[in-house]
C-alpha cells in the first residue's frame, strides 16, 4: 500500500475501533492467528499420525534394529487369519455398545427430565449416580465387572442368581457370553456420557412445543416421535459419532475384564493393535492396524455426518 493511498483511505474511512481493526487484521492475515493452534495440533496430533503412516511401511520393531521400508508389515497384517475375527468382534462390540448406550442414555435422560418437570425429588442424585460410572477409569471398570461376573462361588451376579435358584452362568469363560459381558460393562460405563448429551438436548427443547402439541391433540408417543426426536436429532447424531469413536478406541476395560479371551472371542481392534505392538513388539504391524482403526473411525463419522442437517437452523 502506498503512502498516498493509505492517507486517502484514512481520510475517507472513519478510523475503525481497535476491535474492528483486530478483526480486519485477522481476516487479511489469518496465518499468525492460526499458528499456535497449527503448531499444537501439528506437534501432538498430526505428527504421530504421519509417523504411524510412515512406520506402517517399514519393518520397525519395538526391539530396535535397522528400519527398512517395505510392504511386508502391510501384507502380513492384512493376510493375518485373525484379522477377520478381530474386525467382526469390533463390529459387534461397537454396534451393540453404541446402540445400548444411546437407548439407555435416552431412556434415563427422558426419565430425569420428566422427573425434574414434575419436581420429583432425587433427580440430581440419579444424575450423579449415572455420572459416577463414567468417571471410573476403564481399567477399574474392567476390574469391577470381573468381580461381578466372576464365576467363582463368590461372584456377585452368579451368587445372586443362585439365591433365586438359577444355575451359574459362565459369564467370561464362554465365548458368546464373554462378548455380552464386555458389552454390558462398556454400556454401563458409557451410558452416562450419552445421558448427559441427550439430557442437555432435551432441556433445550421449548416446553411450549409440547403444550402446542397437546392442544393439537398429539398423544404422548406422537409428542415423542414428532417433537422430541426431531428436536434432539442433531445431538443424537453427534453423540453417535463421539461414542462410536470412543468405543472403537476402548481396550482398557476389555483387557482388564477378559484380556480379549477366551481365545480371541473379545479381542477388539484396539486391543489387537495393543497386543501386536506390546506383546509381539511389531511396531510396523501395530502402525498398520492403527491406520485401519483411524480409517474405520473416519468412515463411520463421515457416514453419520451425512445425516446432519446442513445450512439451516
Amino acid at each position: 500500500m502506498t503512502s498516498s493511498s493509505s492517507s486517502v483511505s484514512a481520510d475517507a474511512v472513519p478510523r475503525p475501533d481497535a476491535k474492528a481493526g483486530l478483526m480486519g487484521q485477522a481476516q487479511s492475515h489469518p496465518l499468525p492467528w492460526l499458528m499456535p493452534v497449527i503448531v499444537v495440533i501439528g506437534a501432538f496430533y498430526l505428527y504421530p499420525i504421519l509417523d504411524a503412516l510412515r512406520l506402517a511401511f517399514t519393518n520397525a520393531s519395538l526391539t530396535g534394529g535397522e528400519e527398512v521400508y517395505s510392504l511386508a508389515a502391510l501384507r502380513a497384517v492384512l493376510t493375518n487369519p485373525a484379522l477377520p475375527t478381530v474386525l467382526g468382534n469390533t463390529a459387534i462390540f461397537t454396534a451393540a455398545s453404541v446402540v445400548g448406550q444411546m437407548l439407555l442414555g435416552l431412556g434415563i435422560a427422558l426419565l430425569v427430565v420428566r422427573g425434574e418437570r414434575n419436581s420429583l425429588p432425587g433427580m440430581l442424585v440419579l444424575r450423579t449416580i449415572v455420572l459416577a460410572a463414567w468417571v471410573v477409569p476403564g481399567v477399574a471398570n474392567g476390574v469391577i465387572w470381573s468381580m461381578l461376573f466372576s464365576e467363582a462361588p463368590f461372584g456377585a451376579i452368579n451368587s445372586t442368581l443362585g439365591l433365586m435358584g438359577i444355575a451359574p452362568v459362565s459369564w467370561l469363560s464362554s465365548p458368546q457370553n464373554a462378548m455380552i459381558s464386555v458389552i454390558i460393562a462398556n454400556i454401563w460405563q458409557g451410558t452416562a456420557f450419552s445421558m448427559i448429551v441427550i439430557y442437555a438436548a432435551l432441556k433445550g427443547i421449548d416446553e411450549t412445543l409440547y403444550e402446542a402439541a397437546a392442544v393439537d391433540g398429539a398423544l404422548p408417543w406422537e409428542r415423542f416421535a414428532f417433537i422430541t426426536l426431531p428436536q434432539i436429532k442433531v445431538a443424537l447424531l453427534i453423540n453417535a459419532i463421539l461414542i462410536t469413536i470412543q468405543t472403537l478406541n476402548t481396550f482398557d476395560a476389555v483387557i482388564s475384564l477378559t484380556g480379549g479371551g477366551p481365545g480371541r472371542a473379545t479381542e477388539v481392534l484396539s486391543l489387537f493393535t495393543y497386543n501386536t505392538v506390546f506383546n509381539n513388539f511389531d511396531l510396523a504391524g501395530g502402525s498398520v492396524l492403527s491406520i485401519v482403526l483411524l480409517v474405520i473411525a473416519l468412515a463411520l463419522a463421515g457416514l453419520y455426518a451425512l445425516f446432519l442437517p446442513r445450512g439451516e437452523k
Partner: protein
Amino acid sequence: MAPVTLTQISKSFGAVETVHPLDLEVKDHEFLVLVGPSGCGKSTILRMIAGLETVSGGEVRIGDRVVNTLSPGARDVAMVFQNYALYPHMNVARNIAFGLRRRGMTRAQVDEAVLEAARLLEIEPLLGRRPSALSGGQRQRVAMGRAIVRKPKVFLFDEPLSNLDAKLRAQMRVEIKKLHQKVPTTTVYVTHDQVEAMTMADRLVVMNNGRIEQVGRPMDVYAHPRTRFVAEFIGSPAMNFWDGRLEAGSKGLVFVAHSGLRLSVPASRQVAYRPHLGRPMTLGLRPEAISVAPDHTDARDTEMVTIKLVEPLGVETLAFFDVGGVESCARLDPAHTPRAGDSARLTFDTAMMHLIAPDTGEVVTCEGRATGGASAPRTHEHVSHQRETTP
C-alpha cells in the same frame, strides 16, 4: 363453537392461591379479553381452559361438557402462544396440518383445509418454509393458521402480539379482529396491554391479584370503572388522582384537594356523593377532561399551573404539571398547547370525575345518572355484567 363457562374455578400452587374462586361466562361467538398486570392470573385462567393447567377447584365447561379432566387435545380448543410455539423442524404446511393429522383426517382433506386456512391468512407462498425463515408477523399468522384450521370450539390467545414491534402489533390487532368477524369462534384473549384489550374486546375482564376487578364492554369499563385499579389500568395516559375531601360549598358539594384545588361536584352527582361529605376521598379525572381555559377567565373549576413537560403526539399533546406534588397529565389540543415552563390556566371538567373511597379503592357509583360526555349510555347489559363480577 360453544360458550365457555367457568364456575368457581380457582388455582393454587401449594399454599399460594394465584386465582381466587371466580365465575366467568364467555358467550358463544364472543371475543372476550382478559387484561391485567403480569401475575394477575389471566394466563392461568386461559391455561386452565386449555387444559394445560389443572384446576384446583371449580368447574370448566365448554359448551355443555365439563372438561376439567379432559386432556387438552380432547377439549377441542386451539391456542396461539406468546412465542407462537411453531414446530421448528416442520415447514409451515406441516405445522398447520399437525393437529388435523392427529385427528385422523385423510391427506387430501388435510391439504384442502391447510390451503383454505393459508388463503384466509394470506400465507400461501410461505407454506414450504420453515419457521426459522419467517418474520415475526409471518410466524404469528402461521400460529393463527394452525389454530383456525382445526375449526375448534374455542380460540385461546395468550399474549400473542407481545413479541411484535409496535407497528406490526397494531396491524395484527386489526387482522385478528377481522378474522374473528369472518370466523366468529368463541375467543378468549389474554393480554397485559390495555390498548389491545380496549380495541379488540367485545367484553373485557380486568383482573388483579387473581381476582376479577370488573367485567364489561370496553367503553363502559373506561367510562365507569368500578375500582381505582380499573380506573388506573384502563386508559393511557392513566387517570389523574388527587387526594382531598368533599366539603359543602355555597352551590353544593365541592371536592377540595390537598393542594387547594377546588372542583365543584356536578348537580347530577350531589345526591350520590353526599354520604361521603367530610371524608377523605380521592378524585379521579382522565387527562382528556382537562383543557386550557379561555384567556383571562377566573371561572369555577380552573387552576393556574406550570407546565413541566409537553409530549406532542400529533393528533393531541400531553401536558404534564403538578397538582400539590402529584404529577398530573392533560390531553390538549395541539393548536392551543402551552410550552414547557409556561403558566397556564386549565379547566377541569368535573362531569367526568370519579370519586373513589381511598380505603376500599371502590369508585362511588351513581347508578342511573348521566355521567358526562365521554360515556356511552348505560345499558341493561352493562348492569348485568357487573353482577357477574366477583367482589
